[in-house]
């Protein structure tokens, strides 16, 4: 179904001059961005700057008004149109609300795509679910309903759902929103661990600077719909770009 040669080390992302408006209000204004295969990019920015809108364009949930997004040199619209069995790589998203289906158990949520697309036999699916839940430290929760889980557990179950289909690109929309510092650290460590073990490309949208510092290979600062600064995780905190300085100052990092 998917070619290992195509996707080893994740999926590359090219965002070219992407514009998106809602009711005449421009949210994205010509965003340009490149993410290398296997990279963990953190898109950072204040509330309402268009971070979530940008990753919804990257995964193809919404279409830009102008511009183009390519995943491994394949236009995202073209990728979405391909039937599942012809997709050369897999893409998943962890939503801010976790977006677990409330009517399904944790195991059913994690195995949903595998079952719906008949990607594996029943025993194999059961094994995959067990493995994925173990990777996110949720062993023994298979039969629980999402409403019985804490916020942090729901986030981890959503990450397990992304792992179950062996995603080559995982997008995280505010993965630590509404979590306490300890759980934030846990989710950060999990994102790091996924990259070390599986090497997918990961794009994380957050305004949590400590988390960004912990997990990012690269950090992009999105201000007023534009990427204004882009550098490695380490460089970002010493960047001399005036908007980055202003953001770091507001976050009391400098």
């Amino acid at each position, binding site marked *: 179904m998917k070619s290992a040669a195509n996707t080893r080390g994740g999926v590359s992302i090219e965002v070219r001059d992407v514009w998106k408006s809602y009711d*005449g209000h421009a949210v994205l204004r010509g965003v340009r961005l490149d993410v290398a295969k296997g990279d963990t990019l953190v898109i950072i920015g204040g509330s309402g700057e268009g971070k979530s809108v940008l990753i*919804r364009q990257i995964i193809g949930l919404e279409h830009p008004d102008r511009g183009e997004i390519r995943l491994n040199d394949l236009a995202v619209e073209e990728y979405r149109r391909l039937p599942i069995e012809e997709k050369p790589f897999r893409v*998943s998203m962890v939503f801010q*609300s976790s*977006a677990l289906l*409330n009517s399904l158990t944790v195991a059913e949520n994690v195995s949903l*795509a595998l079952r719906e697309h008949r990607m594996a036999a029943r025993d194999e699916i059961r094994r995959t679910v067990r493995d994925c839940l173990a990777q996110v430290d949720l062993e023994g929760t298979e039969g629980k309903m999402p409403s019985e889980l804490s916020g942090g557990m729901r986030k981890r179950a959503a990450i397990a759902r992304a792992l179950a*289909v062996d995603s080559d690109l995982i997008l995280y929309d505010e993965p630590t929103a509404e979590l306490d510092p300890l759980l934030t650290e846990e989710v950060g460590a999990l994102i790091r661990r996924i990259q070390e073990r599986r090497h997918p490309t990961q794009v994380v949208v957050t305004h949590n600077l400590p988390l960004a510092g912990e997990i990012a290979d690269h950090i992009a600062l999105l201000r007023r719909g534009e990427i204004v600064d882009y550098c490695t995780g380490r460089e970002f905190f010493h960047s001399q770009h005036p908007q980055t300085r202003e953001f770091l100052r507001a976050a009391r990092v400098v």
Partner: protein
Amino acid sequence: MAEAMESARTTPPRGAAAAVGRAALDLLQILGECARLFAATVWHCRSAPRHLGKILTQLTRIGTETFAIAGLVSLFVGMVMVVQAADQLANYTQEVLGSLVGLAMTKELGPVIMGFIVAGKSGSAIAAEIGSMKVNDEIAALRTMDIEPIPFLAMPRFLATTLALPTLVLYSDVIGIAGGALVVAFDPTISITVSQFLDNLREWLNFTDIVVGLVKGLVFGMLVSIIACAFGLRTTGGSEGVARSTTSAVVWSFVSIIIADFIIVRVAFLLFPATPK
């Protein structure tokens, strides 16, 4: 100047005419969405065997949600009809009570009341469930997994409701007639016997009357499920939006049931003119 032009472009026009225009556009948009969803759902019915489990789950849910209330309402409707009609007919003949209750239940009250009950109980639940899924990004999550919401969510609910409603109509017919017979048996003001009541019913009730009722159930089931799914899928704006969608789905279902009822009655009278057996 540029700001004023931008403001004029984005600010909706005010006044009664503009409000009527907006309402008409909304109405057309909802009708268009329902028609598109209906076509897509019917198209995806070919994958029903793959989703048998989901269809059965929905059928069970509709059954458990409506069985008791449908029985209770039908029983009392049948009883009330006999009490009212018996009083009106006291100076003429009460021998027609059987046909009166039977025809009213099978052709009109059974389908319409069951349609209303399913719209109120199951339609509202469908709209609220899908609406919550929409605002909680669960539907977006399905799309990221290449799971299309129409075959996954709408089609099983559509088939289950469309199958459940005619069954409930039959159940309602039987319970309603039984309710009427119960009053005939125990009300001292009624001068006919239960066997006279049932004989009169058998004499006047045609097979086509029952079929017309079942067809109504089938159509109402389609309407209720498609309207509920369409309003669920167009939900925006958090829990307030879910409440709005749920209410709208029920109101639209009620109105569409009455309109469809009128159309089916007209067509049925053209196809099967009312004559005694």
